[in-house]
C-alpha cells in the first residue's frame, strides 16, 4: 500500500518489535473498508452504539453522537445494534 511507503524503514525503528509509539498514535482506522455514518435526524442519543463499540470509537461530543474515525475499524456492530437504524455502513472510497 502506498501510504506504507511513507512509514519509517527498518534502519529507523527499534529492533525486537517493541512499540515505539503510543497505541493512540497508531490509527487502526486505516484498516477500515466500510465506515459507519450516523443520520443525526434519526439518532435518539440512546448510546447503545457506545456500549457495543469494541474499539471505543463512539464519542459523545456533549451534544451529539460521533464516530472517531482514527480508530473505528468499520466492524459494523454499531449499525447492527442501533435500535432506530440511524447508522449505515458506507464503503470507503
Amino acid at each position: 500500500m502506498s501510504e506504507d511507503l511513507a512509514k519509517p524503514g527498518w534502519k529507523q525503528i527499534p529492533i525486537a518489535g517493541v512499540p515505539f509509539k503510543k497505541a493512540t498514535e497508531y490509527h487502526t482506522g486505516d484498516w477500515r473498508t466500510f465506515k459507519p455514518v450516523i443520520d443525526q435526524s434519526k439518532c435518539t442519543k440512546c448510546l447503545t452504539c457506545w456500549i457495543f463499540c469494541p474499539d471505543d470509537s463512539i464519542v459523545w461530543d456533549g451534544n451529539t453522537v460521533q464516530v472517531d474515525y482514527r480508530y473505528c475499524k468499520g466492524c459494523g456492530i454499531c449499525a447492527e445494534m442501533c435500535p432506530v437504524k440511524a447508522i449505515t455502513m458506507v464503503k470507503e472510497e
Partner: protein
Amino acid sequence: MLALNGDEAVAYAVKQSNVDVIAAFPITPQTIIVEKLSEYVANGELKAYYACAESEHSAISMIVGASAAGARTFTATSANGLALMHEILYIVSSLRLPVVMAIVNRALSGPINIHTDHGDSMAERDACWIQIYCEDAQEAYDTVIQAFRIGENHKVLLPVMVMLDGFLISHTTQNVDVLEDEKVSNFVKHRIPAEIEVFGKKVPLTLNPENEVPLTFGPLDLWDYYFEHKRQQEDAMEKSREVIRKVHDEYAKISGRSYGNGFIETYNMDSAEYAFICLSSTAGTVKSLIDKLISKGDDKLGLVRIRTFRPFPYEELPKALEGVKGVAVLDRSGAFGAMGGPVYNEVRSALYDSDVHPFINGYIYGLGGRDMTMEMLKSIYDDLVETVKSGKPKRKIEFVGVRE
C-alpha cells in the same frame, strides 16, 4: 583435563558461563545435560534459577520471559522436543533474545527413534537461530562458551543453537580439556542488555516495568511493520559473521583451540582433488579415511567440515574448494521431494555465482542412527572419482547404507 561425554561437556561449559536461568524438560539423548545442571544447581555449584517445565514448549516459553527480563538463559533439547518448541523458536529470534540452546541431534519421529540424524535441527534452519554443528565433546564445550558471547553481542542479539550428535558424541566419553572457572567467567562475563531508543529516551531492551519507558514485548505487528522487523533479523544474521569469527579467534587465544576459521574447518585440502563436505561427528570418520588413504600414497581426498551452518559460509566455501574436481556432500537428513539434502542444496547454491564449479554429488546417509563406516565413505570416494572420470554428475539423490 576431564573425562566427559558430550552432554557432560555441555553442562560443564554452562556451569562456568554465569548463566542466570535454566528451564528444561528431559528428552533422550539430551537428558544428561539438564540432569547435570540440576545437580549443579542443587548442590550449590551453580548459582542459577532452575525451572522444571512440563513440556519443551513450556521450557522455551519460560526462557523467553527470563531472557526478555535480561537474564542469561540456557536450555537443551532433542528431536521431538525441538519440534514442540518450533512455534516459540521464531518468537525467541524475533524478540532478539540471545538464548543459548544445545541440540543433541536425534531423528524425528516417526517411526520413533532415539538415535542421531540432523533432521531435527535442519527443520529449524530458517528460524533465525545461529546454528553451530560440533564434531566432538571438546568442540561442544568450547562452542557453548562462545555461544553466549556471540548471541549477546549488541550487533547480533540472536539465539544460538549448538549441535552435537546424539549418542555418538552425547554419550561417548572423551578427554575434554576444560578451562579454569575464572578464565571462562572473564571470557563470558555477565549479560549486558542492549539499549534502544523509544520516545526520545534510551532504555534497556528488557521487560522491566521499572524502566523509564516500560516496553511491551511481542505486540501485534502487521503488514506495515512486520517486514521491516524481519529485515532487521537478516541484518543481524549478516553482522553475526564478524562476531562469530572474532569470538572464535579470541577464544582460541585463551584456550589454544580453534576450529578452522570458525565457519569451516579444512583437512588435507592443499593437495586435494576431491573433497567431502559434512557436518558434525562424521568428519572424524572422514579424517580417519583421509589418513588411511595418505598412508597408502593417495593424498587426493580432502575434507571441508561446515561448522557454522547459519549464517551459511557461502563466501568461505568456494575459496576452500578451489582446484577441486569433485565434491561429495554428505547429508544426515532427508529433504523429501527436494533435489537432495539441505547441505547439498546450500553448497551448490553457494558455488553457482563463484568461479569454482566442481562436480557435486549429494549423498544422504545415517538416518535414524545408521552407522557411516569407513567402507561406506570409501565407496562414496570411489563413486566420486568415477563421476569426475565419466564427466557425468549424479542426477538423483544417492542413499548410502540403506538396504535395497
